[in-house]
């Protein structure tokens, strides 16, 4: 029983954070927002240099061969920075999906190394998500037709862009025709592959929400310490302090859910489902509260494009609805816990099937 991150894990996340402080400065985000989803190839290249797209790829495919408890800290940092490029979706979902299919599907094996190095951009259209993130910028797409997993070239699909309030997210509905040539797997293998992809999607959306929450707290605290009203910094008023402390409490306990879900997402069983849904709800709720509190603390200033807060708020709102919205995850927990299929009790918390 050990629930701590290693020094190496923390160092890798720290290095990524430093890079992002540079790559995702407010000026950089403002520039990216104006291009609305035309991401910077330069930023992607810098991230790929760190090897991050391949964290979850086997070493044989040129990856790092690491696990979800390694990548969860990376996803958190991507959230904290409101990274415009869909690194989390490629490295956290597409790459392990390809790696899982590689033994059964030669075409998956073929592109895995390119995906892991970041040379090839891979977008994912998973069941449960109506839109695909980063489809326009991808080289290939992994798409669902029922249980089947298909691999399709970007040139082979039509895209209907769906503008998001988060102008750093390039969303699209994908129009395409499945065929035997595009199919990687079907049946139970496909179902399992998509189920795992969906759980990772929800887990890493939750991890990003942790980072976003921390960032929104940091911005609000900085503003509250600087802005004065009635002759005192507003951060010295109890009402402001208590609002922000409440967000911090929510964040801390959301962390426990997210890190625990990272440790068991591979199990893909009922308990993993409950853990992932708990993580998604807790982190999403923390981020939602952080956004609201951030606006309250900033007053009218929070509405200004010049204040950075809005980048993180919008990303939070977008992620809360992605990879299963609040209703989906709450109903799933209710079905498992109230419905009686999950054994209850404190001795069950760490049971794995």
């Amino acid at each position, binding site marked *: 029983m050990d629930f701590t991150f290693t020094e190496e894990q923390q160092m890798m996340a720290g290095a990524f954070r430093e890079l992002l402080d540079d790559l995702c400065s407010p000026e950089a985000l403002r520039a990216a927002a104006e291009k609305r989803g035309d991401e910077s190839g330069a930023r992607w290249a810098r991230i790929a240099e760190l090897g991050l797209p391949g964290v979850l790829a086997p070493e044989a495919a040129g990856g790092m061969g690491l696990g979800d408890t390694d990548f969860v800290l990376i996803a958190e940092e991507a959230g904290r920075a409101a990274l415009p490029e869909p690194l989390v979706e490629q490295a956290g979902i597409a790459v392990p999906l390809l790696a899982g299919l590689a033994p059964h599907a030669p075409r998956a094996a073929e592109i895995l190394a390119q995906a892991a190095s970041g040379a090839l951009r891979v977008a994912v259209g998973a069941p449960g998500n109506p839109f695909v993130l980063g489809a326009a910028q991808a080289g290939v797409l992994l798409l669902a037709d029922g249980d089947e997993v298909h691999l399709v070239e970007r040139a082979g699909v039509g895209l209907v862009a769906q503008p998001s309030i988060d102008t750093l997210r390039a969303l699209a509905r994908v129009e395409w025709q499945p065929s035997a040539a595009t199919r990687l797997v079907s049946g139970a293998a496909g179902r399992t592959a998509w189920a795992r992809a969906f759980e990772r999607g929800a887990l890493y959306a939750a991890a990003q929400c942790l980072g976003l929450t921390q960032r929104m707290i940091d911005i609000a605290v900085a503003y509250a310490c600087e802005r004065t009203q009635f002759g005192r910094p507003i951060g010295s008023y109890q009402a402001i302090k208590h609002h922000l402390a409440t967000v911090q409490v929510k964040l801390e306990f959301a962390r426990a859910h997210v890190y625990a879900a990272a440790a068991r997402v591979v199990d893909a069983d009922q308990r993993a489902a409950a853990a992932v849904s708990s993580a998604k709800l807790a982190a999403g709720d923390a981020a939602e509260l952080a956004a609201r509190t951030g606006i309250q603390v900033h007053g009218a200033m929070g509405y200004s494009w010049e204040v950075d807060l809005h980048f993180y708020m919008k990303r939070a709102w977008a992620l809360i609805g992605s990879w299963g*919205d609040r209703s989906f995850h709450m109903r799933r927990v209710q079905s498992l816990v109230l419905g009686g299929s999950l054994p209850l009790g404190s001795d069950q918390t760490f049971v794995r099937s």
Partner: protein
Amino acid sequence: MAIDLRYTPEQQAFRAEVRAWMAAKVPKEPLASLDTAEGAVQHRAWERTLNEGRWGMVTWPREYGGRGCNLVEWLIFEEEYYRAGAPGRLNQNGIFLLGPTLMEFGTPEQKARYLPPMAAGEEVWAQAWSEPQAGSDLAALRATATREGDTYVLRGHKIWSSRAVFADWAFGMFRTDPGSEKHKGISFVLFPLKHPGVRVRGIPQIDGETGFAEIYLEEARVPVANRLGAEGQGWHIAMATAGFERGLMLRSPARFQMTAKRLIELYRRHAAAAEPGLASAVAQAWMDAEAYALNTYRTATRLMAGGSIGVEASLNKIFWSELDLAMHRAAMSLLGARAELEKHAPDAGDVGNWLDGFLFSLAGPIYAGTNEVQRNIIAERLLKMPR
């Protein structure tokens, strides 16, 4: 039984009259946002149409363009206005805030000069309350009005002026006594926005529009006759205006009842997928919107019987702002994966204006005096707790 919650035949006839007029005149297609240049033009045209029907501000005396309606008639008017889906009021800073203030503190000349074109929507007003270092703490303001004979020379920097980009006039507070501090030595001054020495710069908002602006005053000269009330009485007048802002008129119950109705319709479309707590949240929203309506009728008939409004304004402000936020949060949850879409997205479905409304509702607890300040007022003035 004195409480009688039935409309009189006259009130019913009034409702029918409003309903018929609105059915005939309200634009069939929604106008562009009133925080855009195109929308401002469209909304000015709508205000002219309203005024042709003498519906610009029904509670005002006829001489200023109104109908002399009482508060219950005003509530009925608002109910029919929202029911008809009529456009937002471009001139709300004028008609709801400055109008009542002029009525109470203006000279006969000022009322005659400003109220009729205000009711007609010919002169659109912006407020110029905040300054960069004076938000909730309005008494920290620094802008000055220096008297030179019959002229004030205005200098300073106002910010978060809602609607100022497309408005004609603004009202604000200025220090007329240069050595004064806090609430003293402040006067309430009206000034044109298209005027030498006045520069308006829109503030880009997180939704890309410019509902707010900064106003730079660089030796803008206006007649002393533009001052409302006595010199140095500005704080007192502004507090009255703030009372109007929080009070009965700015947020009519019909607005929230309309949102509650739309939320229920949204819920019904998404009920199959919604987590059970949303059913209770939506029912609660309906009950709270009803409570706000009932309470407003309660206050309105009390005022009509000679009562006055005090701390109720603070209670109202907290209630409607939290209700509005709760309704829009529930809507965002119901919209799920589509909640992030802009309303013109091809697959926006029934996203409609919910996202815009959600952004706006987040501001509810802030403007018109933050809810923190309102809670202080309730605790100190109503509950008599120590400062």
